[in-house]
């Protein structure tokens, strides 16, 4: 696999055009563009219902230069399974030729929650597709409701921080690990602030024969409550605090892709975001301690699994 080179990427045409209606500062379009830079083959894009889909395909317009299908909220993986099956059958019969790649995009709601069964089925069956979850940690499009990807104590409209309950009660589901347990060839966690890492992972995902899954942290100014122009700083904080470790699972091997020289305190990640504001009120220090403790434990697990500790 060739190295990811910014100069080379800058000469490629964008496959998601400008003029889509995603919010400024949204991570989804950045992720899509970076991922699509990773292949030169034609792709068929499937998309779950969500921010990305509703903002890019308002009839009679489309922001997609590749063929695109949206079916429903929970079935992007099953839908793309069907398109990929059509490709295999028609190719076998000599009715079509050339290489086409298949990709499905879903937000965390359409991936971790309602689309989970469809995703699990498609991964288990081994369809040659790349599934990309742009994980912004809530149902942002419908007004910021909690999902199973929402971090503990985040204040959302269905897990609001109140007088007696300080935001979401549960820690987020580790979907990347769950998909790895499907024994598929390639699974990775990435972040668009580290574009080299993301494009490299996307390239690997496209090139591998069989299903691949990328879980990509996707900043959301509306839901996370931060200034729009600070998205990349915030993502850097996510990896520096080890809230969002960058790792991959390839043919049974775990690899760590980023190990901060100095692990930053979790407050670097929590403090800039309005959804965690209540954690910094007097008397709530224990909540931050709990999150720190959990993050540390999880980081140790990842280090161990990736062979980075004794």
């Amino acid at each position: 696999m060739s190295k990811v080179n910014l100069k080379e990427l800058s000469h490629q045409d964008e496959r998601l055009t400008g003029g889509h209606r995603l919010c400024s500062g949204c991570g989804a379009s950045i992720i899509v563009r970076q991922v699509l830079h990773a292949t030169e083959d034609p792709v068929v894009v499937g998309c779950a219902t969500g921010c990305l889909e509703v903002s890019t395909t308002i009839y009679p317009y489309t922001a997609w230069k590749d063929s695109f299908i949206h079916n429903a909220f929970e079935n992007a993986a099953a839908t793309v399974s069907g398109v990929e099956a059509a490709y295999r059958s028609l190719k076998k019969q000599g009715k079509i030729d050339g290489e086409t790649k298949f990709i499905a995009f879903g937000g965390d709601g359409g991936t971790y929650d309602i689309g989970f069964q469809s995703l699990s089925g498609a991964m288990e069956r081994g369809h040659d597709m790349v599934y990309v979850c742009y994980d912004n940690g809530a149902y942002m499009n419908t007004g910021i409701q909690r999902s199973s990807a929402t971090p503990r104590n985040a204040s959302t409209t269905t897990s609001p921080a109140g007088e007696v309950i300080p935001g979401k009660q549960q820690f987020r589901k580790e979907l990347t690990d769950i998909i790895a347990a499907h024994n598929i060839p390639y699974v990775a966690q990435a972040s668009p602030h580290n574009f080299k890492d993301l494009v490299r992972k996307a390239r690997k995902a496209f090139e591998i024969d069989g299903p691949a899954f990328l879980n990509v942290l996707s900043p959301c100014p509306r839901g996370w409550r931060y200034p729009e122009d600070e998205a990349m700083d915030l993502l850097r904080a996510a990896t520096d605090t080890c809230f969002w470790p960058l790792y991959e699972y390839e043919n049974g091997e775990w690899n760590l892709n980023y190990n901060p020289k100095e692990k930053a305190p979790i407050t670097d990640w929590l403090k800039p975001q309005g959804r965690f504001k209540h954690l910094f009120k007097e008397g709530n220090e224990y909540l931050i301690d709990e999150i720190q403790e959990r993050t540390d434990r999880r980081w140790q697990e990842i280090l161990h699994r990736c062979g980075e500790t004794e």
Partner: protein
Amino acid sequence: MSNKVALTGHEILANAMRQINPDVVAAYPITPQTELVQLFSQFVADGKVDTDFVTVESEHSAMSATVGASAGGARAMTATAANGLGLMWEVVYIAASTRLPIVMPVVNRALSGPINIHCDHSDSMGARDSGWIQLYAEDAQEAYDNALQAIRIGEHEDVRLPVMVNMDGFIISHAVENAELLADKDVKEFIGDYNPDHSLLDPENQITVGPVDLQDFYFEHKRQQIDAMENAKDVIADVAQEYKEMTGRGVEYFEEYKLDDAEIGILALGSTAGTAKVAVDQLREQGVKAGLLKLRVFRPFPSEELVEALKHLDVLAVMDRAETFSTTGGPVFADVRSAFYDAKSDVEVVNYVYGLGGRDTRVEDVVSVYEDLQEITASGKVDNRVNYLGVRE
């Protein structure tokens, strides 16, 4: 060369699917459809078809993958029953709205609850407003004939809609019948190649399927769907005519059985039409002018043709193997009665809901309906507009 066989309904329908040789089948097993999927799996395993068989994890994904495959330019099929159709629900509507000519056998079964695996039409009747064409069969032969015609109907350029091929669970699906299968090459020639105008898999002509369709266009798209359903009427008739010329079998929208000079009549669909034919024969021997209209096409609803065929009756009983819980009768009854209203006809139309959850409907049960109709004719009085046949009350 056709081939006479004695097989179960499932074997006959599985052979139709083998002869159609769809590019993609995505299916999940559910009683009583299970055997159909199993038989088809064997054809795939034996290399008898070019199909890519997607063994999905649910009916929801079965319909989702079938939509994906069809949008990818493939001839795509699935099959289901009862709760499986219920689980597909949302995507069933999307398949029709996306104008994808998917063909789906529905092996009719009661929709829970409580759970019941036997035949009634609550599954497909529940999907009557989803935008699918619906064909019903009296027996396995007809289910076979409908399946082949469904491909032509759905794919027709004026239609482009999905088609449900309904077959009564167990009663038809699991019983052995004599039937005539066409030669493989005749089926191939009849259905032709599928060359859709648009496909996700044409990199030279990229398309967007299933965009956001808001106030400014959604209504027009629904109007186009209605046009397609209206067009389907002619196409169904033309395809039936062509099929009849080839096989000697087939009707357009319905079969009229001893209806010409009938004074009392029953309208039924599915396997009960066969039972009703025996009842009609018995009554005719006694000099009773009884007739039957067996409905093959429920969506689109052949309203005018139906009234034309039935308007000379004194009394008509509409048989419904499903309830609507409107307290005003079953789904077929609602449409038939509405059709008669426009015709300003004086035919009395009554409703019999029967056979729910597989409750056996015997010849004598149907005879008892005709006896009720005779009483209405004699008295000129309808005591019960909606009746429940064969229920313990």
